[in-house]
């Protein structure tokens, strides 16, 4: 492993910090789509950079990457199978009155914490 050419770690760190700044500032524009892209798109890019360069997945055996990807795929599978029941407030022949009641109650308690300031 020592014979391979090291990436410039400090440079990658600088890129990561730059991305962090963007991901914090982006949402301040208040545009939802920008928030989504800057927050989660950049998180994916950052994770990719760390995994590739710091964890050296780029020079690791392929099946390690496959194994880790399989884990992620199973998580998406879990999400896809579960979300139609858990994430939705209503579906085919069922509804969750509890979600509506909760959302109403929860948005009233917002001030609760800040009131102590």
């Amino acid at each position: 492993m020592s014979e391979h050419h090291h990436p410039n770690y400090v440079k990658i760190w600088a890129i990561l910090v730059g991305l962090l700044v963007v991901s914090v500032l982006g949402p301040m524009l208040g545009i939802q789509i920008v928030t989504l892209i800057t927050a989660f798109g950049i998180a994916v890019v950052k994770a990719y950079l760390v995994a590739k360069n710091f964890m050296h997945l780029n020079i690791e055996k392929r099946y390690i990457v496959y194994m880790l990807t399989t884990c992620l795929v199973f998580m998406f599978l879990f999400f896809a199978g579960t979300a139609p029941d858990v994430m939705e407030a209503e579906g085919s022949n069922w509804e969750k009155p509890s979600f509506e009641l909760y959302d109403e109650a929860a948005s009233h308690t917002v001030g609760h914490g800040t009131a102590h300031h």
Partner: protein
Amino acid sequence: MAETVPSHPPAPEEGHPHHEEMSFWSKYIFPLDHKMIGMQYLFTGIAMAMVGGFFAYTFRMQLAFPGIEVPGWGLVSPADYNALVTNHGAIMIFWVAMPVLIAAFGNFLIPLMIGCDDMVFPRINRLSYQIFFLSVLVLIASFLVEGGAFGGAWTAYPPLSAKAEYSLTPLGSSLWLLAVALEFVAFLLGGINFITTAMNSRAPGMKMYDIPIVVWMIVLASIMFMLSVGPLVAGAVMLFFDQQLGTGFFDPARGGDPVLWQHLFWFFGHPEVYVVLLPAMGIVAEIITVFARKKLFAYKTVLYTAFGTGILSFTVWAHHQFVAGIDPRMAHIFTITTLLISVPIAEMCFVYIATLYGGSIRLTTPMLWALAFIAEFLIGGVTGIFLGASGADIYFHDSYFVLAHFHYTFFPIAIIGFYAGITYWFPKMFGRMLDDRLGKIHFWGTIIPFNGIFLPLFILGLAGQHRRIYNYEHFPELATPELQALRVLATVSLLVMLGFQLVFLVNFVRSLRRGEKAPQNPWKANTLEWQAPSPPPHGNFATLPTVYRGPYEYSVPGRAEDYWPQNAPE
């Protein structure tokens, strides 16, 4: 990992030449040797099987003769009944099937069968057992605390499991959950060890397709366990916080959803079935090839079907929840995936049956168990189709039909698979032969009553009776005398079966002390563990073997012997 400490327990002065007698303490209580850790798992598993069997005896007595004083327990109250069925299920899966099939056989067999001297992380291996043992203690403690043991079924669905006001077991449910979580940690550690050992430490020359099927199966099972248990670990933390801190992860009044737990649970729970099935299938593969003197029919197909089953098993979990409030449209998808999984499993059974063709079958005790596994597991397999088909599951859900179905899968897996394995490898484990005559008495005394227990329960299920109801007399229409008679038949069969287990215990203990000395390779098998002394010493092989061929080269034409050990150069 470079260990600076000697790998077997410390002789007091470091660097002292080893091979002096280890103390009792370091040899049996805190061992690093994979075989001894396997034995610890084995004996703990057997002890827990006795506990689980005793629970089964207690609640079956209550079901057959409601309200009697069960000898050894007393009156079975509804709370007792719930706690008994809950812990019977949990114990048999988490504290019997998994430690015995995966941990005990895995620990004992993997290093021997791949031809190396130990696991790659002996100390993590020991830690894994210690955590497992701790989980047993926590589980036992859950019976002794105020409020009694948890009685919300092994699936622990909230809100019943989440709030003490519903379950009435404020401490029991948390301790139960903690015990299960500790067990998961133990098997995660053990699993990493198994996987890395089998991947990295194989004997020189042992290629992928030279690995015995049972090793493949245990490793695949460990991988599946590892990939499926994560969400449930997270879920267990959430449920624990719900119980002890009063959070509302699963509380609908606070934005939670009880159905989430069901998904977290079954995303693990369904692969878990295959986690214990695959090792049992592997054990059976080893035994039928040896005693039919046949090469395994289509080795690669077995592997592919195992992989296929493994992957598909992650896509079927919601068939446990068809009528549990999931969206009806999702049921179609899960019906299709569920019926698809019958294909690789059916294929695996066909392969095993095809292996018998042209064989020279010797019906020794291990072979009887292995064949019984196939015959009985088929019943469990085909009845599963009824439950995987969403339309039929509307009627069968949570009925005795389900119960009979999964006992026809789990009993072959956990009990028949265990007996097959233990009667086959006993000579290697303990260096003595089991008594074949007692073994056969025990076999027939177990198999016949086993069918007597669960065949009647299929009929109860067809008649619409549900599980987990401690006394059916509140249902005048459903509790007819004929159905009650079937219940009594099941209970009597159970008593007979439990009685015959004494034959095994006698055989086991007697053979340990006075059995005939076992030769190195009593069954004339090919795999590497039989090329080590019986029992193998610490370090296993005098010289570590090199592998020249696959594990199932039996009856190769042109050879004088009908077997050909993997490590024989010629």
